[in-house]
């Protein structure tokens, strides 16, 4: 890392803060309830586009065998029959594969949008869908900045489908099917904190191989799925203009104003009613 003036001050500030707060921060016992999300790191420099993850995913979720193969110029999309796809992109550094699936945001828009909490950010990290609660309003689909949740339009008992990071397998102590199946070690499963550290390490050790950007570290307020890439992410079809703060943040202001309106409005309305009571009698006199 190059040390310039700005970085120098930043280091100085961090050091200073550590010196003053350091003891306390270190002394805080690791809370049992502290949330430590699990996530997956995907390294597109390692991916060979073999689709093992797709096959394993379909098997684990009882979905039909995936059709098509990654091919430059063709963008395959996840849909109600496949929860993950691998696409190939022609980039400035040649052909690069990218796996797409749910990003498992830290603060997911879909879960904030869900009026029955059918879409749920579990304390383990995966964002899951619960059919017994869902009313099929598809507001999660409207809200998701990654267009991940899919809907079974041709079913009388439709479900919202998306990657759930193999939540059931995680509960059994197993790894997500795609991670287990990957022969190239392009997928790494772990706590998000470990994964960010690992991703940084890889970038640091191999600065020529990677762009200095972990997609998902800050995008949409941080996601459980993290990406490493040899080329800038916009070359791989990623939306790099996504806001860095979380999406539920966008409607928070409105929701916070609700109690205020509920308290103030009735009082205000009653006040106005009292104040204008004489209007009526005046009107009658004028007539």
């Amino acid at each position: 890392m190059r040390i310039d003036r700005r970085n120098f001050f930043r280091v100085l500030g961090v050091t200073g803060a550590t010196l003053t707060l350091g003891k306390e921060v270190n002394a805080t016992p690791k809370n049992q309830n502290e949330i430590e999300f699990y996530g997956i790191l995907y390294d597109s420099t390692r991916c060979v586009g073999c689709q093992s993850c797709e096959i394993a995913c379909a098997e684990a979720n009882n979905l039909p065998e995936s059709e098509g193969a990654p091919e430059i110029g063709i963008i395959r999309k996840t849909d109600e029959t496949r929860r993950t796809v691998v696409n190939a992109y022609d980039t400035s550094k040649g052909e690069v594969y990218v796996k797409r699936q749910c990003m498992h945001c830290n603060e997911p828009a879909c879960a904030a949008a869900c009026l029955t909490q059918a879409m749920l950010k579990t304390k383990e990290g995966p964002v899951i869908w619960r059919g017994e609660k869902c009313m099929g309003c598809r507001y999660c689909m409207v809200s998701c900045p990654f267009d991940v949740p899919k809907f079974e339009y041709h079913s009388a008992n439709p479900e919202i489908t998306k990657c759930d990071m193999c939540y059931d397998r995680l509960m059994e102590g197993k790894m997500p099917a795609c991670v287990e199946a990957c022969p190239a070690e392009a997928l790494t499963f772990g706590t998000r904190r470990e994964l960010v550290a690992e991703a940084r390490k890889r970038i640091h050790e191999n600065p020529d191989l990677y762009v200095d950007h972990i997609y998902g570290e800050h995008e949409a307020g941080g996601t459980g799925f993290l990406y490493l890439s040899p080329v800038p992410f916009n070359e791989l079809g990623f939306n790099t203009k996504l806001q860095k703060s979380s999406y539920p943040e966008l409607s928070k202001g409105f929701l916070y104003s609700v109690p205020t309106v509920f308290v103030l409005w009735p009082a205000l309305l009653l006040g106005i009613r009292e104040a204008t009571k004489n209007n009526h009698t005046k009107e009658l006199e004028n007539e």
Partner: protein
Amino acid sequence: MSNIDYTIAKDNDGKSIWKFLVKELKPRGKFFTPFNIISIPIMLLGLVLIIIRFWKGLGSITNLTQEVPWGLWIGFDVVTGVAFAGGAYVLTFMVYILNMRKYHSIVRVTVLNGFLAYVFYAGALLLDLGRPWNVINPIIGNNFGTSSVLFLVAWHFLLYMVAELIEFSPAIAEWLGARRARKILSGMTIAAVIFGITLSTLHQSGLGALYLMAKDKIHPLWYSEFIPILFFVSSIFAGLSMVIFEGSISQKVFSDQISEKNHKSHNGILRGLSKICTGAMFAYFFLQVLIFVHGKHWGLLNTTMGYWFLVEMIGFVLFPMMLFFYSYRKNNILLIKVAALITMLGIIVNRLNVTVIGFRWDAAVQYFPSWMEIVVTLTVIFTEIWIFRWIITRMPVLRESPSWVNKKID
């Protein structure tokens, strides 16, 4: 129970309440009217389509895609329909809170209109739900998704329907001849009005707030963090334009119901409403200009969507606003009605721009509603008009209350 029956029966000139209801349920008037001839086949077709929809899934009759999951049924039926129903809260505010008694004669019909709009357009939501059997989950707490704007909107729809039913209930009591019930129910009006206005403020804006998280999906000319405020302000003149429009039709179609006095005062009412519309539309236009300037989207104006934005702002907001003002000054009732009609078209354009046209305007596969979605929408609207007509011809909505009602103030 039998005691209550007895009182009602006695109030109703000794007739049994059940015989009375059966008699009232029977259709009246001519059957082969132009409206019936057009609406009945469409409603029957719509019914068939609805059956197919529940049998084969939403994709069987709608053009919805994975990218555009909300189409005409949400964008028009719910979002636009509720804006048009805004007249009820604005008018109750004017009459019961500001004590503008001049408008009292049209309160009942407006509240009825609002109530039916909520029942039918929120009811249309059921058609759009993939798993409608779970619709009670947010009400019974399976689970309370309190972080969701839609949760707020759903509860408000429900509570507001109750509030409007209470506001309207004296008319039902008068129809049934239930004197004591009428007294109790009309005593609840003010509370229902205040509750209703509060709810309306929040869910009219809430319908806009629904789209706040779709930041990257809505065309920047229509997306801003002020969507909730814009939706609220525009619901004022959307609702009043609907009142003008509906009132003008009712004056003709149901002229036998309307007393000489109310018939005469109607023009004065329209004039007053056009003045209020001018003010609300000016505020709205001003807000839109401010938001546009702050958004720094000048470059976008010179695109197809930019022209469309200008058409909406100038042709459907600024122009009808000036028309309202002009016709108010010149006391031209016909022009007021024309202005109301253009304003209503403008509201449809605006709501569809946010929810359908500007939503995923850049998607590879554009959404356009199928003819079946349109037929179902028409079915919903026609059914509502049928019920509206049934109530108008039976209950004292447009006509004066029966003589036994104390006519001082209610």
